[in-house]
């Protein structure tokens, strides 16, 4: 039975999972959810994710939501292949992966998501004007987080160590969109962060996902 991922390719959270699925070479079907028609708030979708957000995943009887738990599930399910994004065989490395996954969740994401929302979602989906005060406040916070990353990346090639892990992967889709805004300078101004971004975004699995990240592109 094939894994079904409910979501849309241009969504940061759906694409985060897509990147993980591609890293593992997993077979899956992307089932579109019509956000414009409010499909994600209808009973059929709420039965999959009571918070009414994409993505959701179905694998046989198992239904999951929250992109980071889905990516973790994929990594666990396909453990033992040549891909190892959780480092489960080495408890210390696994603990460091968990630490930097929490950093992405608790430090990075809350700082970057208002920039993404104001710069891209508000003008494109709502035809509104970005709230510059929110952007400026978030850019300052994100700068401080990236200063910590800059220092960390002087002692290891990737965030959790010298190995690519889910901790790095979870950053891909927000940074990809950030680079479409003037705030991409926050990445470009920090040489090690920039080099890390160039490395992780050039991975074949992400190259399959990036073309779908079309929000903000002029048609």
């Amino acid at each position, binding site marked *: 039975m094939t894994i079904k991922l409910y979501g849309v390719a241009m969504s940061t959270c759906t694409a985060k999972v897509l990147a993980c699925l591609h890293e593992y070479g997993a077979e899956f079907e992307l089932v579109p959810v019509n956000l414009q028609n409010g499909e994600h708030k209808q009973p059929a979708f709420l039965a999959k994710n009571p*918070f009414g957000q994409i993505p959701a995943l179905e694998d046989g009887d*198992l239904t999951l939501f929250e992109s980071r*738990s889905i990516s973790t599930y994929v990594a666990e399910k396909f453990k033992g292949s040549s891909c190892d994004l959780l480092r489960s065989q080495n*408890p210390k490395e696994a*603990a460091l992966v968990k*630490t930097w996954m929490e950093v992405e969740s608790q*430090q990075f994401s809350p700082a970057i998501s208002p920039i993404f929302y104001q710069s891209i979602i508000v003008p494109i989906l709502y035809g509104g004007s970005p709230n510059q005060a929110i952007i400026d406040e978030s850019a300052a916070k994100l700068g401080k987080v990236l200063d910590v990353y800059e220092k960390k990346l002087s002692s290891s090639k990737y965030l959790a160590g010298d190995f690519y892990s889910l901790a790095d992967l979870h950053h891909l889709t927000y940074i990809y969109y950030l680079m479409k805004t003037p705030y991409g300078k926050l990445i470009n101004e920090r040489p090690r962060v920039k080099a890390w971004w160039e490395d992780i975004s050039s991975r074949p699995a992400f190259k399959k996902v990036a073309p779908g990240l079309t929000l903000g592109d002029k048609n």
Partner: protein
Amino acid sequence: MAVMKVHGNAMSTSTQRALACFYEKDVEFQFVNVNMGAGEHKSESFLSLNPFGQVPAFEQGDLKLFESRAITQYIAQEYTDKGTQLLLPGSKETMAVLQLWKEVEAHQFNPPSTKLVFELHYKPLFGMATDTAAVEENEAALAMVLDVYEARLAESKYLAGDHFTLVDLHHLPNAHYLMRSSAKKLFDSRPHVSAWVADITARPAWSKVLDLQKH
């Protein structure tokens, strides 16, 4: 095995989250107080433990961890056979459900509840004025999350299944302070949520965490 040290402050919800796990697992550790009033969490030596300058931080030999939820996961996994079983190791599916609800706490419950704890508990403690608009906004957000919890807890005793796990534990500090504030009504008005909160906050390990504040 090298001795485990938890660097933190007993008044910090994040430190409390980590400590609850240590007490549930009944593992020995040293609690090293971080004097936040004196800015110790921003000192060079603390930043070498947690470059984000936040409590808690964890050390065991050359292993240094931070982020309370990473520390708890490490302890729950490493000491799976000791104390309370905080995971659901039976199958990939049960662990996936646990991971899911762990993310729900982190991304749905934590943001509004943390803001409410700041407004209703910490601000008064520090003689700062509560922002009533922020309280209203975050109570509304938390109410929507607790509606989902109410439905979930009608089908299982705890969030990830029928056993108390790390998922429930992660809620303890914020839930504890909110139950002592005007936001308590959000929990009281939802019978399954109310019963769950009463159950998890009555656990002996949680009482040990609260006792630390008395010293």
